[in-house]
């Protein structure tokens, strides 16, 4: 989201045209009610994000002492929270100085006043909500809507619930990158083009998901160690995890189906699915080690990518798929019960 905003603000035009671009944006805000409403919505969403951030912080154990502020006089806390909120809202308030300047210079007095009052209202509303929380320790349920998918059940369900609840941003970022890349390659290839072009793009798309595997491993270490005491075979555990990673790539598979008949045949599509699962499981298997040095992991991913890159170029993707699936299975079979996470002191 921040990247999108940054791109709109600074990436749309050349640096020499930035000032005139922003001036045009601000003037558009004053001359178009629709555009002004859009900006107000964006500011409201940002203000809401600030509110959720502060409320989340206040509920963390390390910030519990801040709740003692509720002992202060009401107006004093309100003033302090209002100032904190203004600081958090500073990017908007800072930019608004230019909005006010343009508005006043072009005699949009009423609109400038509306904008000022709207921003103050956002900060005051946030301050009031946070003050209410400090005084009552009660969060309005509409502030923290819970998205709960129907349970898939089993291990796959555990992973899905985890991503939906805790790693939405990570998931969205990897999807944004991989789907954008695949769509771009798809649009610029035509029937009869070499399958390897899409294959290499697919490799990049898979690599963008590898940091999700790190998160899965951390989740397993924290919350799923007790499942090692259950009578679940390594084979079943491997297949379930393989199925989860395949499910994770379901949007990409869906996009790829449009290529069947053009740059991709049905057998090749099936190989891509199995290759993807094997690739993810190979990285998953590597992470079944107690000392997970980030530098070593990055180097491992780099060499895995390079090796896969050249093997795909050599049109040996089927062989690569078999090697990845087989070796990941053997690694997990060997390491699963021998693995124990390091407890940080």
């Amino acid at each position, binding site marked *: 989201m921040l990247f999108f905003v940054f791109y709109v603000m600074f990436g749309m035009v050349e640096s020499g045209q930035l000032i005139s671009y922003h001036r045009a944006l601000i003037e558009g805000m004053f001359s178009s009610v629709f555009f002004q409403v859009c900006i107000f919505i964006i500011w409201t969403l940002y203000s809401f994000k600030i509110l959720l951030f502060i409320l989340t912080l206040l509920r963390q154990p390390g910030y519990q002492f801040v709740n003692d502020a509720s002992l202060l006089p009401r107006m004093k806390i309100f003033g302090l929270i209002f100032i904190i909120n203004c600081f958090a809202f500073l990017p908007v308030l800072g930019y608004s100085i230019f909005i006010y300047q343009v508005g006043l210079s072009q005699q949009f007095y009423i609109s400038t006043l509306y904008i000022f009052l709207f921003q103050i209202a956002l900060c005051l509303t946030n301050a009031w909500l946070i003050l209410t929380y400090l005084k009552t320790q009660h969060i309005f349920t509409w502030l923290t809507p819970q998205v*709960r998918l129907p*349970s898939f*059940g*089993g291990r796959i*369900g*555990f992973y899905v*619930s*985890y991503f*939906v*609840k*805790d790693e939405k941003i990570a998931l969205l970022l990897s999807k944004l990158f991989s789907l954008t890349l695949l769509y771009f390659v798809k649009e610029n290839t035509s029937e009869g083009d070499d399958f390897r072009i899409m294959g290499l793009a697919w490799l990049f798309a898979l690599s963008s998901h590898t940091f999700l595997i790190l998160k899965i491993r951390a*989740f397993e270490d*924290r*919350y*799923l*160690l*007790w499942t*090692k*005491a*259950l*009578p*679940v*075979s*390594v084979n079943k555990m491997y297949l379930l995890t393989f199925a989860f990673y395949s499910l994770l790539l379901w949007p990409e598979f869906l996009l790829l189906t449009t290529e069947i008949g053009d740059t991709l045949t049905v057998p090749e599509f099936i190989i891509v699915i199995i290759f993807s699962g094997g690739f993810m499981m190979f990285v998953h298997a590597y992470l079944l080690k107690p000392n997970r040095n980030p530098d070593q992991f990055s180097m491992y991913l780099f060499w895995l990518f390079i090796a896969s890159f050249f093997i795909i170029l050599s049109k040996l993707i089927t062989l690569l798929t078999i090697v990845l699936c087989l070796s990941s299975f053997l690694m997990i079979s060997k390491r699963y*019960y*021998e*693995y*124990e996470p390091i407890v940080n002191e």
Partner: protein
Amino acid sequence: MLSVKNLSKKYDTNLVIQVPELTIPNGTFWIEGGNGSGKTTLLKIIAGICPFEGSVHLNNIDLKQSPVHYRKEISYAEAEPQFPPELTGSELILFVQKTKSASTAQITTLINYFNIGHFINRPVGGYSSGMLKKLSILLAFIGSQKLILLDEPLITLDNDFIPLLLSHIREKQSEGISFLITSHQAIENTMLSFNGKISVRNQLVKLDMY
């Protein structure tokens, strides 16, 4: 019967526990020892969670050679359980039920007996430590295991739940199920019948039969 041979466990270079040979007959045993003595490590090794050197057999089933078969015979309830916070108690119960091929009737009986039905449909992330403990203990009783490992089963539980738990343990004892129970406090006065005590001290484990 549980038999342990040449068992040793190290964290880095620190030897935590060493058992040259230990045979624990069927029955109920209290595992006692000070903080950091290795009681939980021993239970986790027997449960199959913790890697180790050596061998562990339960009724001649080798933990390392027959991991699935072994784990069908055993259950473990942690001292401080941690479950995925976004899942509900019922989802976890269903998961364990499926892995242990337990009947729905058994699950219903356990939920009603332990009286936890009023909170198991809520996400585990909102549970108190006592509620987590109750859920963990219930999960350990799911299935048809021969040995149940309970790590500090009485901590964080309310006074209403403890008699229910002790009564259920006595019932399972009469069915021939064995228990290994760790506790810092003397658990011998809880009206449970113990066959012996296992002391864990200075990395060594000693069995005293009553």
